[in-house]
């Protein structure tokens, strides 16, 4: 009877340790220095490009594809009549920014419509406004501008109007992170989890703050 508690104590202590280790590895912020997104040996440069930014109740302004000083710019190409990929990506980014916490205000979000024929400035502003305050809803002036910007990022899309009036939109669904100089630092595949997005954002924001350029 007297040795029972002692016998129970050892496994209990072990279990506690195991639990602590598991919790630390599963719940703690990832400290791995490896980015989940793709990087290129020579980053693409998009900082020389700009596009019309839609604003609700105000005239459009011009947006240049560069992050704020010390910040990051997230760019995604989509359209508002997109039921799955676009809201999934923007929703996942919103979750990721919540995870990032205080540094998240250094991340700007640009959403470029690949379907300017149907997406008005107002529609774009309202749509992006449902996900983020202070986002940049971008609408190309014409097809040439869209193609030039997409080419710089390595993105592509096509809009096909069918005989029955339906419109088919095909588009690449990668997301991009641009720095203050207009270099594309990172490309994320569609479906990258909010946790992985947050991990990469933290890592790059820390790099910016550390000035390791």
């Amino acid at each position, binding site marked *: 009877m007297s040795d029972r508690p002692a016998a129970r104590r050892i496994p209990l202590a072990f279990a506690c340790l195991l639990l602590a280790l598991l919790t630390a590895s599963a719940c703690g912020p990832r400290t791995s220095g490896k980015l989940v997104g793709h990087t290129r040996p020579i980053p693409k440069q998009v900082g020389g490009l700009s596009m019309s930014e839609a604003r609700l109740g105000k005239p459009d302004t011009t947006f240049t594809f560069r992050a704020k000083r010390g910040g990051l710019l997230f760019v995604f190409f989509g359209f*508002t*009549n*997109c*039921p*799955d*990929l676009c*809201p*999934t990506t*923007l*929703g996942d980014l919103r979750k990721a920014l919540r995870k990032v916490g205080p540094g998240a205000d250094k991340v700007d979000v640009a959403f470029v419509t690949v379907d300017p024929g149907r997406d008005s400035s*107002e*529609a774009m502003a*309202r*749509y*992006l*406004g*449902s*996900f983020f305050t202070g986002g940049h809803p971008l609408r190309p002036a014409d097809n040439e501008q869209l193609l030039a910007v997409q080419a710089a990022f390595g993105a*592509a*899309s*096509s809009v096909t109007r069918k005989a029955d009036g339906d419109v*088919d*939109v*095909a*588009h*690449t*669904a990668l997301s991009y992170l641009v720095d203050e100089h207009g270099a594309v630092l990172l490309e994320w595949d*569609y*479906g990258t989890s909010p946790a992985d997005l947050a991990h990469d954002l933290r890592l790059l924001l820390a790099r910016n703050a550390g000035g390791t350029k």
Partner: protein
Amino acid sequence: MNRNVLPVLVLLFALVSLGSCTKRERHPMASEGLRGEAAVNLKGFHARPTPDGATVGAIFGTITAPLGDTLRAVKVAPDVAEKVEIHRIVQNAAGQMEMRPVPWLALPEDEPVELKPGGLHVMLFGLAAPLQAGKTVRLTLLFQDGGERVLEVPIRDE
């Protein structure tokens, strides 16, 4: 003793035959009147709240048919959306993602078929009103054997 068992057996046999009979009747091309509840398990069905100004929406969830079945069509009331289809996102030859309508969806025996972001979804075109979190959408699923399932799909973010 034996005298009591026999009537029970006969009754049981009769019931079983009756059961298989109704099933056979319902099988290939059932008329509207013979529709029953389809023997499928539906899990996690939900619609995503739509962003401001969006005219399309999507419903996700998992369907399992223990005996195998085919999802033939999906329906919502006209005051929800103008048109509703099953869609699959595929990568085209140019590496771009596009949606293709799925005319019917095979449900292999006892194998969960997931409708999830980046894959399959129930596509709602021409929403009459934005899908708001906390509300529901009534969705009807029509199956091969004429059976159908009506469910109140919650609208929530996940």
